[in-house]
């Protein structure tokens, strides 16, 4: 039990500290790296409460794919060395009230959820979950996801697909006069088309590229 507690506090301290560092670090690339550290420690916490599938999916999806794209964008935009004068500048100070309101709303939502969990446990039907405890994590998740929640699951997949197609449609430009390479043409080129043996007369030469 002591070892469990030590690991729990280690990971949660790392998670909280890196979450703070995401917002306060001056270098944008550094804050993405702290975000990755945060993801990793949270997936460790998931694994510690026995949600191994969720933890691994968290690693694969968020750390392995999403954060790579974050890093990519931040590095390409070259905003790494920005001056951190956010609070001082007049232009950005009007964002602060909006941000404060949003964060207050989120804070109260969290209080409602955690408070309900703590003081009215019957809202969250814990007894239901004990039925499938003999199955492995992946099995029990699959049994719920593909039966009771199949429509929600499929709809969320469709929403993601629509978002992806929409992003491609919005940013797609048909550019004219760009030289494109046709793989079929390149691969199916025969020797006879490319090479020709010419008899060259003395002192005349050959005209190429006509």
């Amino acid at each position, binding site marked *: 039990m*002591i*070892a469990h507690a030590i690991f729990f506090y280690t990971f949660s301290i790392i998670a909280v500290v890196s979450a703070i560092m995401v917002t306060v670090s001056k*270098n944008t*690339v550094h804050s993405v*790296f702290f975000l*990755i550290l945060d993801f990793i420690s949270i997936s460790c916490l998931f694994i510690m409460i026995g949600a*191994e*599938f969720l933890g*691994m*999916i968290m*690693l*694969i999806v968020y*750390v*392995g*794919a999403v954060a*790579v*794209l974050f*890093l*990519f964008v931040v*590095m*390409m935009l070259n905003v790494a060395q920005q001056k951190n004068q956010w609070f001082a500048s007049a232009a950005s100070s009007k964002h602060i009230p909006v941000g404060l309101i949003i964060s207050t709303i989120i804070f109260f939502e969290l209080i409602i959820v955690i408070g309900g969990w703590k003081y009215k446990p019957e809202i969250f039907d814990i007894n239901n979950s004990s039925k499938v405890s003999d199955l*492995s*994590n*992946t*099995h029990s998740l699959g049994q719920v996801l593909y039966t009771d929640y199949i429509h929600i699951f499929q709809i969320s997949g469709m929403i993601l697909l629509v978002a992806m197609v929409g992003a491609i449609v919005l940013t797609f430009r048909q550019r004219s006069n760009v030289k494109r*390479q046709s*793989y079929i043409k390149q691969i199916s080129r025969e020797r006879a088309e490319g090479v020709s043996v010419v008899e060259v007369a003395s002192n005349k030469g050959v005209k190429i590229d006509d």
Partner: protein
Amino acid sequence: MEYLNIVFQEVYKILFLLVPVLVSVAMIVWLDRRVWAFVQKRQGPNVVGPFGLLQSLADALKYIFKEIIIPSSSNKVIFILAPIVTMTLALIAWAVIPFSATQVLADINVGILYLFAVSSLGVYGIIMGGWASNSKYPFLGAIRSAAQMVSYEVSIGVIIINVLLCVGSLNLNDIVIAQQNLWFVIPLFPMFVIFFISALAETNRPPFDLPEAEAELVAGYQTEYSGMMYAMFWLGEYANILLMCAMGAILFLGGWLSPIDIYPFTLVPGAIWLILKILLLFFLFALVKAIVPRYRYDQLMRLGWKVFLPLSLTWVVLTASYLFYFNLLPTN
């Protein structure tokens, strides 16, 4: 006292796994260079030790005594972290590789997901190294490699789904035991070929070694590295290659199972069979390096997204329909 005992036992087990992996990484570098040389009718490293077997140790010694140069304009913390990340990620994945039904360090339920997650984290070592060097060639190499590894991960993931459909479990030992009658390389042969090629791309091996294309980018993300830090990149890369070979052996070639289920062959320990299968796959890796010319970058992307992804997705539908129609879906 009890805790200490458990900790010591685990440390002993981990060392018993990691030291052979590190030694075999050194040997595998020698094998790679030898195979490469023989294909080109050269001798390769044959001076240090018998058959040149100690060449890698001599190289490692040289790297240890070289000076580590840290560029003054680099981001020093991340610059130093990058090779450490590469090396660590390449080594922690070995925790779940089963060497026989019982010889496995961590027999976790989601073993294959763990392997996939760790191999997808491998891109960070390269991005960190490329960005922190604060120089043009490493940065270009890192960007190229990030795009390449993310692309090929997708097709590897779909191929893993193919195998999992036939197994019905994410545990690596279950995957091996499911192949007792028939190795998955036979029914899923096209997937094996795609997995092999994707593994080449995922580990930045030739013909997909664009992140370090010598002709264009000097040495890609490792241009600014020297001494032991360069050696750590190098070790991590080869440990990753071995890991990919082990993954291929477990997913398609029956892991620690003996190829023929007859009396004298079943006496050989499973670890030997697994090592032989890994070596076979690595031999193919080394041959490909010597035989195939490097891909152009747009061709590489096209191969990943327009050829491998549709092919492996179609194969998922095929496998699922076949298993469903003939009522062969694994249940427990």
